[in-house]
């Protein structure tokens, strides 16, 4: 009972963090699925969503600021693709990747220029920042909502991909550019739609993520972006369910490692804290290495269809 009682808070926060990673990871995995590109700028777009929210909420009421923030973030994602990736459509994949790294630094440095590198306090969003009590522990409402919201959004996305025309076009383009074109599919529109969906989810994710943190700095996108990327690789890059499951696993493990000291002390396994929490980030990246060595295609890596 003690074990459960002491682990529960970390588990719940881990599920919540996992949901936030999942929303970012989908952007990585969808873009990879279609363009075979690791979009390094994705984490920075996530950071920009946070900054935009900071500035907008200072100037206007939240019910305008939130939709506008999402809109601007989506516009940024769309623009990045058109300006930095589309002209390189027929270039070697390495060129596009270098372009993505360039975009990432450009965004970070612009953010540094605009904010002066200062921590910008994230606005408290009423209702979702409120304290609630669940299973006898106190937490914010956003922690409870995040996993549900994530699951709803992912379900909607999976429906979109499997049962709509644009979803069918996305699947076709991700398999075979040329044949998709011969079907009359405009690949540039499909690719844009992919970026729009990816950045939309990242914008939602940023709102859920930053609410739990004191503020946004230009490098805020780095860590969550990287971890979401690891989640996407862990789940099998290109696979949406894979990215989501990977993100939840990473979020939960990370959170439990952070609380491992406390959990063990409370349960009398060890007598004093030994500092496991330091290793929570290291765990994520150790996992990345292990996955790449032993199962490079991840949990749900691209399936190949065999003849029967």
């Amino acid at each position, binding site marked *: 009972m003690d074990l459960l009682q002491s682990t529960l808070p970390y588990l719940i926060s881990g599920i919540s963090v996992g949901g936030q990673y999942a929303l970012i990871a989908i952007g990585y995995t969808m873009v990879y699925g279609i363009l075979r590109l690791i979009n390094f700028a994705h984490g920075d777009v996530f950071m920009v969503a946070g900054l935009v929210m900071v500035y907008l909420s200072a100037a206007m009421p939240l019910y305008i600021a939130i939709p506008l923030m999402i809109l601007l973030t989506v516009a940024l994602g769309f623009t990045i693709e058109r300006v930095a990736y589309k002209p390189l459509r027929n270039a070697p994949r390495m060129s596009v990747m270098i372009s993505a790294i360039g975009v990432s630094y450009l965004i970070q440095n612009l953010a540094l220029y605009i904010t002066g590198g200062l921590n910008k306090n994230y606005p408290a969003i009423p209702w979702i920042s409120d304290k609630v009590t669940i299973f006898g522990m106190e937490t914010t409402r956003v922690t409870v909502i995040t996993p549900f919201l994530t699951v709803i959004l992912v379900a909607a996305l999976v429906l979109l991909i499997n049962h709509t*025309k644009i979803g069918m076009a996305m*699947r076709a383009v991700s398999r075979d550019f040329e044949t998709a*074109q011969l*079907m*009359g599919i405009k690949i540039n529109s499909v690719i844009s739609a992919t970026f729009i969906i990816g950045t939309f989810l990242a914008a939602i994710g940023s709102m859920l993520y930053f609410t739990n943190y004191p503020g946004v700095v230009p490098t805020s996108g780095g860590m969550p972006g990287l971890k979401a990327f690891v989640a996407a690789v862990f789940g099998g890059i290109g696979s949406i369910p894979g990215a989501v499951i990977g993100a939840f696993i990473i979020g939960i493990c990370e959170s439990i490692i952070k609380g491992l000291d406390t959990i063990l002390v409370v349960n009398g396994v060890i007598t004093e804290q030994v500092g496991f929490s330091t290793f929570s980030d290291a765990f994520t990246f150790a996992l990345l290495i292990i996955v790449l060595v032993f199962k490079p295609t991840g949990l749900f890596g691209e399936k190949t*269809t065999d003849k029967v």
Partner: protein
Amino acid sequence: MLKINDLHVSYGGIRALRGVDLEVPDGKIVTLIGANGAGKSTLLRTISGLVKADSGSITYDGVELLGKPINKVLEMGIAQVPEGRRVFADMTVLENLKIGAYLRKDKAEIEKDIQWVYSLFPRLEERHWQLAGTLSGGEQQMLAVGRALMSRPKVLMMDEPSLGLAPLVVQGIFEIIRTINEQGVTVLLIEQNANMALKTADIAYVLETGSITKTGTGAELLADESIKEAYLGKKKK
């Protein structure tokens, strides 16, 4: 009528087509035979808009196709069955057919055309729920043809439909080509299997290193000595 005039195309620095003239009259089966690398596929890809031409013109019913985006060419009624079938392996047979009708919005008519394709290829109806990647080569070719038909093309261009298929299956494919043609679809057929292609075609062209070297009816070319030697496997005396 699809009309190609003095078409020049370069492909990665190589002049793949050097002044090709070709006509595909409505309602006919026209075949283009030639060896590997003669430029056959390049010609189809240029008509579809996948490859840009250097100069020349491609018109359909008097409308210039060069410079039009791929989806517009398809909208004008010119569909391509790509070389090597290229079905979407992890979509079902039915989804593959539906994606062939991607540009169309007339749902009821699409439903009718699916039934039409099923009537041409009963095998596809039996297997409509199966992933296309699990079909045999011949079935995949049927699917690729069916998928192209779903756009209701006026001209169907096929790039080596017999590639990698057993002789019996090839015969079936050519029968289907005739059936489709009898139902009013003009066919432009590219083949290395010159024997079958010439037997099926109303009009035939021979393409050698980027230029048309011979033209005539299918039967004429079938009887031509030099064609026999080069493409039909008749030994030199």
